[in-house]
């Protein structure tokens, strides 16, 4: 990407100070969001989300596995992010390794709760088939196709949409199995359970530029940030995860203020995403019927 001149940098910073950004948005506005679900037919669930020019695809694949010995009543979820070279030439080869790892861990922190699985946005107990023996392993793979800033929010939204689209097949277990044996499973081809996403949080990233914070930064605004805080908030307004990036220190009162701003914005983003997701799901329903 071509570097920005000093004049351009002043323009962007000045705009943010005056609450008019380069594309005309106010500091707390998101770019237009488009959601399309069911884009990867061979996955259990998938979604493609576009926020402005940032575009990501998320897919959810469910496989049967064994629950960990520490948590025999919980299934497992793993999140992987891959940044495609298509989005940015610097992502070629191993260039995106660090960024992908950072995004994967940030997403896991926001959506999956602590190491014990407590407080997860995704209900892991709903993934159990036979306690201690068989559970569903969900593999969530995200791919960044086009990068124009605010990747974490877009990835969070795409995972939420993909989970809403996810249908896990019903499993019938043969009853007559002793305590040590692996029970036989019969995976249904016809009956599916829609995954419950009411508790999945959304991620809001607030980027501080100068004295103000903006939401949904584009790639020309991101280099000016002094620090950024990504907060995931669920439907009830509870904070599910928090990540601070950037070297500059933040006053604790600023952090509390950012959290309350994020909580307020999360309601708007959540309702917007919900309506986009249900519109996308309805579109699939129409296609299937016609």
């Amino acid at each position, binding site marked *: 990407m071509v570097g920005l001149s000093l004049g351009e940098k002043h323009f962007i910073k000045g705009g943010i100070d005056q609450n008019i950004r380069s594309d005309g948005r106010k500091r707390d506005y998101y770019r237009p969001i488009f959601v399309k679900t069911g884009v990867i037919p061979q996955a259990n669930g998938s979604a493609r989300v576009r926020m402005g*020019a940032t575009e990501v695809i998320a897919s959810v694949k469910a496989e049967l596995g064994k629950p960990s010995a520490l948590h025999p009543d919980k299934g497992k979820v793993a999140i992987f992010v891959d940044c495609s070279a*298509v*989005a*940015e030439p610097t992502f070629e080869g191993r260039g995106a390794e660090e960024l992908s790892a950072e995004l994967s861990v940030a997403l896991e922190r926001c959506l999956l709760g602590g190491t014990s699985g407590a407080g997860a946005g995704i209900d892991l107990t709903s993934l159990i088939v036979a306690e201690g023996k068989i559970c569903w392993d969900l593999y969530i793979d995200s791919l960044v*196709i086009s990068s124009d800033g605010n990747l974490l929010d877009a990835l969070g939204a795409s995972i939420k949409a993909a989970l809403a689209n996810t249908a896990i097949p019903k499993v019938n277990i043969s009853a007559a199995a002793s305590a040590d044996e692996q029970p036989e499973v019969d995976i249904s081809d016809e009956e599916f359970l829609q995954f419950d996403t009411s508790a999945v949080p959304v991620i809001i990233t607030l980027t501080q530029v100068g004295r103000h914070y903006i939401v949904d930064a584009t790639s020309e605004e991101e280099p000016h940030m002094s620090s950024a805080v990504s907060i995931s908030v669920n439907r009830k307004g509870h904070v599910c995860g928090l990540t601070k990036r950037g070297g500059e220190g933040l006053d604790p009162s600023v952090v509390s203020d950012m959290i309350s701003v994020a909580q307020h914005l999360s309601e708007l983003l959540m309702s917007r995403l919900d309506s986009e997701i249900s519109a996308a799901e309805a579109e699939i329903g129409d296609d299937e019927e016609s």
Partner: protein
Amino acid sequence: MEFVNPEGLRLDGRRPMEMRQLRAEIGAVARADGSAVFEMGNTKVIAAVYGPREVQNKSQQSNDQALVRCEYTMANFSTGDRKRKPKGDRRSTEISLVIRQTMEACILTHLMPRSQIDIYVQVLQADGGTRSACINAATLALADAGIPMRDLVTSCSAGYLNSTPLLDLNYLEDSAGGADVTVGFLPKLDRVTLLQMDAKLPVDIVENVMQLAIEGCKAIATYIREVLLENTKQLEYRRGL
């Protein structure tokens, strides 16, 4: 297993000489100089071209022509089973090389010395013929980027199962163990730039199957030309001409 039933229909209902449905979209990646999405049936790939731009690695710079680089990757979710390592495995390296050589032969590199053209191809869904879909997508992306080329490069695969030459194999037909011939073709110049085959074929059948693949390439070239014309009309319309 029967790949062509007695009525002459294949597993997905196509006739032996019928290609899968093609769909192309130009300009999918906003930040790339040129980009395209190309679908052949269930195989879906996205290609992005960055360039001509300054060479990143000065030791590779050439004073009389442009440097063409290519990277082919498959998404984790592109195949039925999850792929754990999307880049760097041998198959991806080989296909990157194949695409680079095919496109390099076609780009007028002498017009852009001391510069670099990067072609990135990402497979979103793999159902056989990914190599061909990638070359077709790369052609469209290069055209979208305005990079001068000798001709459009189109590619198609063909095989031979149940004693019938089949055009445009999908994944099931490809893994059946029969031959898989991939052809890269320059339609206007009427030249073959890429030819790869695996498995065995009787010598007198090879010519037939290759010819069938070339016919497929010509059909794809017609479609690509239509897509490019339509795209140009849209651009003219948006400029108010």
